[in-house]
């Protein structure tokens, strides 16, 4: 039996862990509710009269709303594209035998490890030469380099878990491979598909470097916008934190929904 003392030590430890994890978010949200004068008080104040002015200004006067919409358009489109390309590929990797499968697999997974700056340099030059800077489609395409591998990995794993007998039965009835995938395996693989979609969305939504390098105004993403507030001498801290809050809320919600699969996804399955 756990003694009372060790139970209290445990509670204290857990309390510390939760506080350390959550405190920065508390500070972000409270700072976002401060006026510039209150935000610049030294030492910082903990109790003050909250205002939503930062959100109003950021969203409607500085154009953060537009960049959020850009981020949403890009993240949703690239996720859909990754699913359209990735799910059949995952099905093939899970179900068919063919030469070069191993190498293909290796290549898909390696993309997860490549530093984005390696691709950002040539992508910038190519996009510039083709007149594709500051366009949504450019980001949608380049985000495939990390979304496609994650979709393929998670969904392949999910397809492998579906008994092969089901395929067999359908094939005896004359169903094509495509029908087998769509009508039989895909419905059963939906949890994996959903999780990979959430991952793909989170990674795309969170991305800064490509957004910074490949967009200017029209397709500017929300993180790039938040960073652009950091120029000048008197930084609008409240507004920066308001924008940060708006960026972070959707990903945190998605991450909590997928919290059980988060570790598995981040390690690309090394940990079950």
């Amino acid at each position, binding site marked *: 039996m756990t003694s009372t003392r060790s*139970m209290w030590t445990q509670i204290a430890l*857990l309390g510390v*862990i939760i506080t350390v994890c959550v405190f*920065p978010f508390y*500070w*972000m949200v409270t700072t976002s509710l401060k006026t510039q004068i209150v*935000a610049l*008080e*030294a030492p*910082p104040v903990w109790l003050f009269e909250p205002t939503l002015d930062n959100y109003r200004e950021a969203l409607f006067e500085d154009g953060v709303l537009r960049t959020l919409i850009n981020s949403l358009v890009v993240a949703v489109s690239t996720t859909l*594209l990754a699913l359209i*390309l*990735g799910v059949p*590929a995952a099905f093939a*990797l899970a*179900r068919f*035998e*063919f030469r070069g*499968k*191993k190498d*293909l697999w290796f*290549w898909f*997974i*390696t*993309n997860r490890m*490549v*530093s984005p*700056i*390696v*691709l950002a*340099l*040539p992508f*910038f*030059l*190519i996009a510039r030469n083709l007149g594709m800077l500051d366009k949504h489609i450019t980001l949608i395409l380049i985000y*495939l380099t990390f979304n*496609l591998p994650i979709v393929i990995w998670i969904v392949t794993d999910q397809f492998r878990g579906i008994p092969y007998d089901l395929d067999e039965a359908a094939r005896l009835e004359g169903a094509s491979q495509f029908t087998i995938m769509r009508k039989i395996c895909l419905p059963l693989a939906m949890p994996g598909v959903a999780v990979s979609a959430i991952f793909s969305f989170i990674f795309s939504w*969170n991305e*800064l*470097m490509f957004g910074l*390098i490949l967009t200017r105004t029209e397709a500017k993403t929300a*993180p790039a916008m*938040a*960073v652009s507030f*950091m120029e000048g001498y008197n930084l609008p*801290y409240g507004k920066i934190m308001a924008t940060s809050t708006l*960026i*972070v809320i959707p*990903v*945190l919600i998605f*991450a*909590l929904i997928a*919290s059980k699969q*988060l*570790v598995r996804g*981040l*390690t*690309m399955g*090394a*940990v079950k």
Partner: protein
Amino acid sequence: MRGQVSRKTIFAFIGPAVIGLALVGIAPLLYAVWTSLHFYNLTKLKRVEFIGLENYWTVLTDEVFWQAMGRTFFLLGTALPLQLALGLIIALVLHQPGLTLIKTLCRLSLVLPMATTYAVVGLLGQVMFNQKFGVVNQLLGGADINWIGDPENAFAMIIFWDVWQWTPFVALVLLAGLTMVPGEVEEAARLETKSKWTVLRYVQLPFLLPGLVAVLILRTADTLKLFDMVFTLTRGGPGSSTEFISLMIQRVGFRGFDQGLASAQAIILLIITIILAQIYIRVFYKEV
């Protein structure tokens, strides 16, 4: 027979993904190789010329490049042990029975840091570590520490955020490992010995190993990729004290406009990454 389908069918399923990824993942790399063999400066586009391996030679003999590389591995070498130690403590606490509600709450809080937008972590750093009105100095009892403007403090601050963001990841990976230990084995071991250390070393550690290797390799890759958070927080400064490898390449290519040299640096980084990835695949994906 199982898995025997025509080549046409296979191509129809896997072709689009392969072509798609080749277009966005391989074609740019080939272009980067081409660029790296040229003098290619964004401000002097009239005189792009072929210079062979000169850029590579410059990179390989460039002290600044190897310093950035060294700094990157120094960050890994300081942050990772902290993440492993703290992560293990958290995992062991969460693994103990009882207090279900608060533990569920704790696991959910752990998810938050690692999902947070890197750029937002950097911005939070700016606000919380500000010398005058930052909350960190206030919590340190009204200290007057210049975090962002001092080379060593800035580095410490980067370590702090890296540890804050990724210790939860290590903790949850290790916790997953701990739950793999069969209950009866763990109980039997606890009857044999009172020492928690012995149980950890001889019973639990073997189950933690795959996760530990995954953490090691992924954190290495992620540190080589590290850009967004540091860029927002310090831009690599002050001086070059927090200029890690990806930031350095970005500076050379986009703030120094030397795309040729930056491409050569990127290709060398890519080679290092591929070697690491090879190790990763060898260790984890034997079954495919």
